[in-house]
Each structure stands twice: as C-alpha cells, then as structure tokens.
C-alpha cells in the first residue's frame, strides 16, 4: 500500500486510499441500472421475497422494490442483463416485465412536484403562524402590541411569499410579457397589493393588515396547483411506463454474425434479422426469406400478407411465419411510422381550439376583478381624497374576489375523478380530457385491435368433416402462425385428436404441408392450395386432389366490447365503426354488435377526414382506436381513447389510455366525466356566490381582514368538499 511505502501527510492512510479506489472504480464500466415492472405485487411478503432473491444474486449491488409504482430498481454489475433479472423474478412466481431504463430515468425524480410541495409547506407553516398572530389582533390587541404583532407577521410573510409565490410570479410575468391576462395576474396583483398596503398600514400603526390573507391565498392556491400537478404526474408516469415496456431492440447481422442492438443505433443499409413474431424495427426491403406479415396495426387489415424477397416492409409490421432479413432503407424519425406524426401534428392543431372551463372562467373573471378594484379605488379616492383608505379598500376587494376557490375548483374535481377512473383502469393523460369527454355525443370505434383483440377465432369448425379437422390439426399444431394457432386451439377445445401425418414441414409465407398415406396435404394460403380466395380471413386445406376446404376466422371480440356498446347507446350516443379492414369483415362485426353505421377499407386519411366532417357537422367525436392508421383520427377527434396494447404513436396521440384489456369502462367513464364537469360548474357557482356576498362588503369598505379570512377559507373548503362528493 502507498501508506506503508511513504509517509502521507494525512493521519489516516485509509482516507487517502479511499478516493483512489473510487477513482479506479469510476474508470470501470458503469453499473447496469435495470428497472422491472412487477404488476402483481401487493404485500410486504412480496417485497421481502423479491428483494431477498435479488440481493442474494452475487452480481447485484442493491435492489429495491417500490410498491406504489409496482417496480423494482436494480443496481448490478455491468454484465448482468435485464432478461436474467426478469427470469429470476418470474421464477419466484411474480409477473415481471423489463422497462426501458432510458425512458424512465428522465423522470425518475419528480423535481417539479417536490419543488411545489416545498413551497406549499413553507406557505402552510407561515400562514398558520401569521393566522395565530392575527387572531390576537382580531380579539382586541391594541397599540404597541398590535404593531408588534403586525411587524412579526410582516417579518414572516415577506420571505415566505417571496419563496412560495414564485410559480405565480413566473406565470403572471410570462402572460403579461405576451400581452395576455391569465388567472395568475389577479392573484399576483392581489398578493402584492395586500402586502404593500399592509406594510404601509403597519408603518402608520393602522388597524388592518392583510398579511394572513396574502399567505392563506398563496397556500390554498398552491394546494390547487399541487393537486393538479400530482394528477398529471401520475398519469405521465403511467404513460411512460407503457412506453418503457417496449424495449426497442433489433438483431443486426454483420458479416454473418448476429448482434442485438438498440433500434436507435441502426443505420440505413444495415441488415436486420426479424424472427417470426417480431415487429419490423425500421422501414426496409426483404433481402432474404419468405414469410407472411401482419399489417393490422398500420392499416387495420386482419388478413396476413405474403412477403417475399424484394418486397418493401414498413416499421411496425409483424413478421408471422419465417425469419426475414431486411435491409434498412429508413431508420428512426424517417420511418413511415414516424412520418405519420406529421399527419398527427396537422390534426392536432384543431384540438388546441378547445378552451377549458377554467380558462373560460378566467377570461370573464380577470378583467372583471381588475375593473371592480380599480373602480372602488377611484370611487373612494374621489369621495375621501385619502390615498390610504382608497388603496386599502382596493386591496380588500382584490383579496376577497381573489380566485382562491376558483383555483381549487377544477384541480380538486379532476384529481377526484382521475383517481376514480384510474382505479377502473383508465389513464387520463390530458388535463382537459375529462371536460371534453363529458361533451361527447358521437363515438367512433376502430375495429382491429380495439373492438376485437386482433387474435383470430375459427368459425366454421362444425361445418367441416371430422377427418379434415384432424388433418388440419396435425398440420397446424407445429406452427406459430396466428391462424394455425387458432385452428389448433379450436380443434383441441372441441376434442379432436391430430391425424397421423408424416413429413410435416412449414413453408414460410405459404403454409404447412405433409403426407397422409402417400397423398400430399396442404394447409395454407389460397394460391398455394389452389383454392379461390374468400373475402374474409381464411386458411385452406387441400387433401390430395380433392377440392380445397376453407377454414374461416373472425376476430375474437375484446372483453367488455358489448357492454361498452350497450352503455354508449343507452347514454344516447351515436356509434360508428370505421376500419381499414375488408367490407365483409367490418359488416359482420357491425351486425354482431348492432352498430348501424360503419365504414370499411378506410385509409388513415379517410378516417381523419371523416372525423373532421363529423366535427364540422357540430358533433363532439370520441375516437377509440389503436393502430397507426388511427393516429390522425385520434388526434383530430374531440377526445380520444386508445388501449394499452396500441402502438406507442397511437397512445401518444390519444387523451385517455385504457390500461386493462376490458372495454367496458368507456361507458362509465363518460358518466364520470359528465358528473365531474357538473361538479366543476357547481364549484364555480359556489365561488361566485361567495363573491356576490363578500364583494359589496369590500366595495363598501366594510370588509375587515377577519371577513376576508373567513370568506376565503370557507369557500375553499366548501369547494374541496363538493369535489369529494363525486361518484
């Protein structure tokens, strides 16, 4: 050791050795930060079991489970992979999914929320103290005692406001600089005017100081801001978790060697291997392999499409049967998936036209308050020629009318409503989504992936001869193609056993073939089996030289689709089905669910145009969709919902995300939104009633600081309680 070889100036050799060791460690590879989503954990036993297992792993430095977020964060040696950790936790009997740490890290610490909470705490502390001092003043403290109390209040208030009021000052300044008025301008004016007049009064040994009012105002308004922020932060973190669940990885082939890389690292010209079941990470051209691809997320078509060498594929399509090697022609932001974002941006410009109830109230309220306060100042000044009285009364008017209750009216209700909907499995992403949802009168559904699960379901099993089903089962059971899997599942459930088929081989992109008693049997695409293609999703079975038989499929309905439909129709809403799928498929589903209006073979632009047209007719459209072909329509609609299984782009474009698999909360959500909006309006009315009572008193110069404090607290508390009544 260094310490033994030469004397160190430090008395403790370990002290100088420790930084050196740290520097050495820093030069090594950074530790792996792994995040896992654990949706099923629920108790203290789960926490200790998982933490113990993870910490016992020799390469894990530390692991901590967060039960609130249902997440585990692991700090491990660089060579540990997330997959390894996931398998470890799954082995304990808990569901685990890898989360993309990069997506989550950006918001790991909710700095803005912490900042607001700190300001709220300071305002709360200061207002309690000042209120106590004010109580003694109101109970009759006089002369020197009163002055002392006022001075102490001032000493507490000034720094407290300077710290806590920053969010309001900043917002008001931003609005004023752009020549606009927002809710924060009257707030800041009231706070500043109250403090200035109170200081002036205190210097002149006056009786009325509004320090407590200024602080209480800041406290209540900050409470509203904090609630608002929390609701949005919860939604944002849940939405981010959905995004982080899709870890973007691709297999790149270089000189015959496969390596797994991040999609962000791919370049144009790279060769990428896409295994069956994988999604295309980039746009490209197939250079090797044949398969079938499922484009339902892009176009809404449920019928798999043949894919062979030389064919172009787009990011987001799913490879079904055979491995494909594609050469990237566009990566990252250039892919067709991302280009769709332009369509979304255009459609979204329409949405910003919506003004929230709070903004509407502010627009009426802010100028009104200023005019009223200005008028009472001028009136009293002309009447008494006394600057002090006039300023005092103007400040009292501003404080009493200040939108304390208005600031709480909306956040209290949206917090309550979002919490309720979150428990039912709906994530409200946008702040005004509830208000917009309450206005909805027309609901547009996408078919594939939204009303249906996107997994096929065999329909004509009973109509097929027994030996055909057994042969089909034998051919289908080894394949991972969705139609083959659906056939296997349906045949097994009905109790069929597989026939003896020799030499079963899968021909990627075409189907499966085998031999029965020397005769060739084939199960696969129409062209390959020599059948006439039907308009609906089907696969064909050819036994020997006999005419091919068709096995037809429909999409399985998503659970709760029928309930949602009934609830919406009962609520008097017009329901429309819009899909990119073929006419017979769409028509069949529309009949099954009793939807009178439907539109098939719609292109993405058609959907958006139709939604625009409905909107132009004055309808408030709720769009429910999941695919890339829906994104423009989702953004164009008045309000939009997408399921958690939707593509990232669709989830980003929508206001509300359905977390579960079930569609039934949609109907209930419309009702909750309606009652939430009703509560918001009620809250505005309550706040107005308080103003109607208190403002004449203030203008008449009868408002004492005691009345101001009472009016403010009472209205804030009533408004919050009213919000809690929400069912």
């Amino acid at each position, binding site marked *: 050791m260094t310490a033994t070889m030469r004397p160190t100036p430090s008395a403790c050799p370990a002290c100088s050795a420790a930084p050196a060791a740290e520097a050495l460690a820093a030069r090594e590879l950074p530790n792996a930060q792994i995040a896992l989503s654990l949706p099923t954990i629920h108790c*203290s036993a789960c926490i200790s079991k998982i933490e113990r297992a993870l910490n016992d792993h020799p390469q894990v430095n530390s692991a901590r489970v967060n*039960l609130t977020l249902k997440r585990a964060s692991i700090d491990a040696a660089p060579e540990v992979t997330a997959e390894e950790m996931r398998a470890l936790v799954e082995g304990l009997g808990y569901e685990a999914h890898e989360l993309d740490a990069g997506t989550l890290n950006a918001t790991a*610490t909710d700095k803005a929320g912490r900042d607001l909470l700190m300001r709220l705490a300071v305002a709360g502390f200061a207002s309690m103290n000042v209120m106590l001092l004010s109580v003694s003043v109101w109970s009759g403290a006089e002369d020197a005692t009163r002055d002392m109390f006022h001075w102490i209040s001032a000493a507490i208030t000034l720094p407290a406001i300077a710290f806590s009021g920053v969010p309001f000052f900043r917002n008001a300044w931003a609005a004023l600089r752009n020549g606009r008025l927002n809710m924060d301008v009257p707030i800041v004016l009231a706070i500043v005017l109250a403090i200035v007049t109170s200081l002036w009064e205190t210097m002149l040994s006056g009786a009325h100081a509004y320090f407590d009012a200024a602080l209480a105002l800041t406290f209540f308004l900050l409470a509203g801001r904090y609630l608002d922020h929390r609701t949005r932060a919860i939604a944002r973190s849940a939405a981010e978790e959905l995004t982080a669940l899709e870890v973007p990885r691709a297999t790149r082939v270089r000189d015959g060697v496969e390596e797994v890389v991040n999609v962000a690292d791919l370049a144009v010209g790279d060769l990428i291997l896409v295994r069956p079941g994988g999604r295309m990470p980039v746009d490209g051209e197939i250079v090797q392999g044949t398969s079938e691809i499922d484009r339902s997320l892009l176009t809404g078509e449920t019928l798999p499409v043949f894919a062979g060498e030389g064919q172009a594929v787009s990011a987001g399509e799913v490879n079904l049967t055979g491995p494909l090697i594609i050469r990237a022609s566009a990566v990252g932001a250039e892919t067709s998936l991302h280009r769709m974002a332009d369509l979304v941006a255009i459609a979204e410009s329409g949405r910003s036209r919506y003004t929230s109830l709070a903004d509407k109230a502010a627009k009426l309220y802010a100028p009104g308050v200023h005019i009223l306060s200005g008028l009472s100042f001028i009136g009293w000044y002309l009447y008494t020629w006394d600057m002090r009285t006039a300023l005092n009364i103007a400040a009292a008017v501003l404080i009493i009318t200040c939108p304390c209750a208005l600031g709480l009216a909306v956040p209290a209700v949206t917090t309550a409503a979002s919490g309720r909907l979150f428990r039912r499995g709906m994530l409200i992403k946008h702040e005004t989504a509830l208000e917009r949802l309450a206005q909805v009168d027309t609901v547009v559904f996408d078919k594939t992936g939204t009303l249906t699960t996107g997994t096929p379901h065999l329909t004509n099993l009973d109509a097929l001869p027994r030996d055909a089903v057994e042969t089909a089962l034998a051919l289908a059971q080894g394949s991972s193609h969705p139609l083959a899997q659906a056939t296997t599942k349906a045949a097994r459930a009905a109790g069929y056993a597989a026939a003896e088929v020799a030499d079963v081989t899968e021909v990627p992109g075409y189907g499966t073939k085998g031999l029965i008693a020397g005769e060739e049997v084939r199960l696969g695409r129409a062209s390959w089996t020599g059948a006439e293609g039907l308009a609906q999703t089907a696969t064909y079975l050819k036994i020997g030289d006999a005419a091919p038989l068709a096995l037809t499929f429909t999409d399985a309905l998503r659970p709760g689709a029928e309930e949602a439909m009934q609830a919406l129709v009962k609520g008097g809403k017009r329901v429309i089905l819009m899909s990119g799928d073929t006419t017979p498929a769409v028509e069949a589903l529309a009949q099954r669910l009793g939807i009178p209006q439907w539109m098939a073979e719609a292109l993405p632009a058609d959907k958006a145009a139709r939604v625009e047209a409905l909107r132009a007719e004055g309808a408030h459209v709720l769009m429910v969709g999941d695919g890339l072909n829906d994104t423009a329509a989702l953004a164009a609609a008045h309000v939009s919902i997408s399921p958690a299984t939707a593509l990232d782009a669709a989830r980003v474009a929508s206001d509300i995300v359905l977390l579960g698999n079930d569609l039934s909360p949609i109907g209930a959500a419309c009702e909750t939104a309606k009652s939430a909006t009703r509560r918001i309006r009620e809250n505005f009315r309550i706040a107005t009633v308080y103003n109607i009572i208190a403002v004449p008193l203030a203008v008449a110069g009868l408002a004492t600081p005691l009345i101001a404090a009472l009016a403010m607290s009472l209205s804030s508390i009533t408004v919050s309680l009213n919000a809690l009544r929400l069912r």
Partner: protein
Amino acid sequence: MNILTYLIPISLILGGVGLVAFVYTVRSNQYDDPEGDARRILSDDWDDHPKP
C-alpha cells in the same frame, strides 16, 4: 404581556422545527413509495440484525 417575548419565539422555533423536518423528509425521498414503506415496517426481515 411580557411573556410574549418568550412565547412568540418559542412557537416560531417549534413550527420551524416541524418545517425543517418536513423539508428533510421530502429531500430524502420519503414520499417516493408511501405504500411500500407502510408495509415494510411490518416485515421482520431486519429485526435481528440491521440492514447492511
């Protein structure tokens, strides 16, 4: 009324202690997992020996 000379500073200091304690809890991430912490206190994993 002279008692106020003591009482007011005392009440302010006590309140200030509460405020500082709250700021400390926020800074040390004690509100990150309220649900988990509520359950953790019931687990007896580290009862016999403290967590390393």
